[in-house]
């Protein structure tokens, strides 16, 4: 469903993502792990066609994410790491706007907005200007806007950062439900606990290079027998550091 081929992004002399090869099958929940500044957000933005790859290719459902951006957007929902909304639109209005931009009729968009506000526990905030939202509320509103058009693919940048434990659990349950319904989810996170519970497969990226990838159990067996995902993560990223530095 999602395919990255030799995907590379450089900013001037700095290589943020280096020849990334990755494939995510339909219905999979793929966790993209890595320390801060590893290239997670850059990769996700290339998948959304927001950044243009320096070389290589990113494709969703066989469509090129840059060249066929418009078609790709019909099937994809996106949550950025820090969602910023129009300050002077209310939560409900933002959801309606997003719905209409995805070709829902006005009344459908309104009904869908109400439904999502309910689902993400934002009823009270629906009539409030987005500028007044806390980070957690913005994240929830962002997630709600990402699923307005019921996309097959979700690309989520740190979906639970900034959420309280209750909301984080709700979001996790929501994502699990969507995955059960056949959606493909590609999420970046550095919350290993969440990745462990949610993801069918993970990839660990460090300094722009994909260090390893596969089902969690397999990685555990390979890198830290009997340990947790955290042990795997530390083993992989620390092993990679001297290489990268040297």
């Amino acid at each position, binding site marked *: 469903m999602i395919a990255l081929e030799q995907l590379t992004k*450089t*900013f*001037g*002399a700095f290589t943020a993502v280096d020849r990334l090869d990755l494939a995510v099958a339909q219905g999979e929940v793929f966790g993209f792990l890595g320390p801060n500044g590893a290239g997670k957000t850059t990769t996700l*933005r290339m998948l*959304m*066609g*927001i*950044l*243009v790859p*320096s070389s290589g290719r990113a494709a969703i459902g066989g469509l090129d994410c*840059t060249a066929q*951006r*418009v*078609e*790709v*957007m*019909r099937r*994809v*929902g*996106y949550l*950025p790491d820090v*969602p*910023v*909304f*129009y*300050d*002077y*639109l*209310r939560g*409900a*209005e933002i959801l*309606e*706007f*997003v719905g*209409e*931009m*995805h*070709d829902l009729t*006005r009344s459908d*968009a309104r009904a869908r907005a109400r439904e999502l506000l309910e689902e993400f526990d934002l009823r*009270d905030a629906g*009539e*409030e*200007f987005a*500028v*007044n939202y806390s980070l957690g509320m913005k994240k929830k509103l962002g997630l709600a*806007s*990402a699923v307005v058009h019921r996309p097959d693919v979700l690309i989520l940048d740190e979906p639970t950062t900034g959420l309280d434990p209750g909301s984080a659990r709700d979001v996790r349950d929501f994502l699990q439900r969507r995955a059960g319904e056949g959606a493909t989810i590609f999420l970046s996170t550095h919350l290993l606990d969440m990745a462990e519970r949610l993801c069918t497969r993970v990839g660990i990226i460090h300094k722009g290079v994909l260090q390893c990838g596969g089902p969690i159990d397999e990685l555990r067996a390979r890198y830290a027998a009997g340990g947790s995902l955290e042990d795997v993560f530390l083993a992989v990223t620390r092993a990679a550091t001297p290489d990268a530095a040297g």
Partner: protein
Amino acid sequence: MIRATTAKLLRLWWRRWRNRGGRLVALPGMERRGAPPKPTRTGTRPRGAARSPWLYFAIALLTLPFLHWQTVTDLRHRVDARILEWTTTQESAQALPADAPMVPADVAKRRAIALLALLLFVGVLFTELSQETLSAGGWDVEWLATLPIGMGELFTARLVARTLMSPLSFFWLVPLLALLSWESAPWWAVPLLVLAAALPLLLLRAAISVFFEATLHLRVSQARLRNLKGVCAIVGTATLFFGLCARQTLADAALGMGPWGALLDWLPTGIVVRTLADAGSPGRGGIALAEGVCALLQALAAALLVVAWLRRSTRDGVVAGGRRESARSAAPARIGGSPFSPFVRRELKLLSRDFNYLSQALLVPLIFVGFQLLNMRSALVTQFDSLPAICAFAFGITAYTYQFSCLRALALEQDSLWMLATFPRPLDAALRAKSRTWSALIAIYPAAIVALGLGHVDFAEFKAGQLASLGMLAVGVPMFAFLFTSLGVISGDTLVSHEQRQRLGMTQLLSLFLIALYTSVIGLGDPWRCFGATALTAALTVALWQKAADTLPHLLDPWSPVARKLSLADGLGAALVFFVLQGLIELLLRVGTTVDTAARLFLAYAIAGVVACALSIGGLWRFEAGRVPRFFGSGASRAVALGVGAGTAVGAVAVAAQWLLRQAGFLTRGELGLLRGDDFGWLLLLAVVAAPLCEEYIFRGLIFGGLERLWGFRRAALGSALIFAVVHPMLSAPTVFLLGLSTAFVYARSGMLLGPIVTHVVYNAAILAGTHWLSTHSA
């Protein structure tokens, strides 16, 4: 004594202010220190060197004293004139002194200046409130209060900082005080006097500003705060402009103020003006000193009161309050059953709720223009008595307004731009909707101006041709919305890169130039010129839009190089180089040599054509390898056949048209004079060699080719033929338009320039032959 903590705070604020690049004085080219340099797009954008802020300061320091001198002198002059006028009326009419402006002249003059100082003070206060105090990004006191500092000290330090760091005061108030000191005291005393006069005003401004800042942050929600910011910006700008422009009103007010004048005298600004006046009068030094002390005491009292009040208000902690509740109570606004697209509705909602946005886009330009008009009311009545003049004025205002809306269309999206990138729609569709919305909104201005202006039109002088101005206005209003939107996108003012932000200044200059050009043609009211200018501006708009659309996929990624493709802009650029060079060379040959007319025309045309085409081909090779329009290729014989056929057909039509024009008396024998004797050879070279080569490369290869990528064959052929016709004389335009259509057809069918070149050769040869025949048979 300033304590160590205060000094540290002052240092912190000074750094912050300096790092923000002195944004208060809106220095466009100033380098933001601390911002990491980011690479530009390779190959597309030159890296501009950071300009020094000192240039702006130097310009300001040189011009502002002159501006103040001019204002003050004019004020005094107007007071004198009013008194003289009043005295004359009194003497002639023997009227009773009913509404006598009987304040002594010197008092009235001083009060007029005090009024000016007051307006400048208020203007600076509100403008700085909107720019600095209420700026978004939280209230730093909330954070500073977590450090081990007393609130009293914190606010005192803030007060000192605001007193010293007030760039607008140094631009608007201090030069006025310096001017007044210069008039009354010896030169060596001026700095001391300015310092003594400025200190109370700066301190008072700081006290009011700190008071508003704290009170508003403590009590008003974020959303309302931004709206207040908009209100402050409007009030501030309006007051500053009113002070500087509405001089007659100030002079009249100073004369007719009566007892209120005394109040004005005792306001801090009034006292300071009096201090400076008295300091120069012999024997009034003591009084001046007392007045100075009085002003300082007033300011100190205000400052102490503010600090005490803020200490009291923050006893229970500093939390910027009311962030959420104010909006929750508001009823949800709906534009019910609206026929607009969701994007347009969003735009209108944002505009109606965000006063800051509304005022920047719609009101500020109106204020700028409005106050200019206040000062030249009489000129308006005499100047704006014809339809072209009114249309030009209406267009000027409209286009000026676009500078604040369309030109900044993307900047206004700010950080929410990512949302547009996630929708399954091309980004340029969103921009089109935006341009349409803005042009529809702003069209109210020109419509109102034309409606009002029609009352002043002197219809005795009216000619039907002048309606062209109205047409040009009607087309120009929506067209410039698109033009400026695309210009804004290309100049990239949303992109993070610092160098790109600097180019906005250039873009604004360019947009002003385009406005001036278009406005002046509207003012001419000549149909053919109006049509030509409109068509060329339309071509420019399409070219820029194409460039902008090419840029859009890279909008959020300033690091990726934009793939260059052949576009209309390449064609227009080459055409521009060609025409300018042709004119220059022709002029040089005429002045510097004795070459006769026909040879001169040929040489100018050929040299300009060769240079323009060579530059264009070289540029295309360099940046867009492989995209140069082809001259030859396989199937050349078919191209030649097509060319001969099309050329013969259109040539026959042209000759017939020429014959008709001649019969109708539009063409005289004089116009055919070139076709005699030696000149004929040069003309033949020009018509069948130089013109087909250059024009086909530029108009078919570049312009039609660029348009075809955007529009497809049919519209591209029409568009390129229209541009081709517009650059020809009016009488030949219809047949040239036909030639443009047929050459485009031949080019598209044959895929190489050889075809249209042959068409053009045959067409020109037919015209020459036809003309020759007509002239010999009529002689």
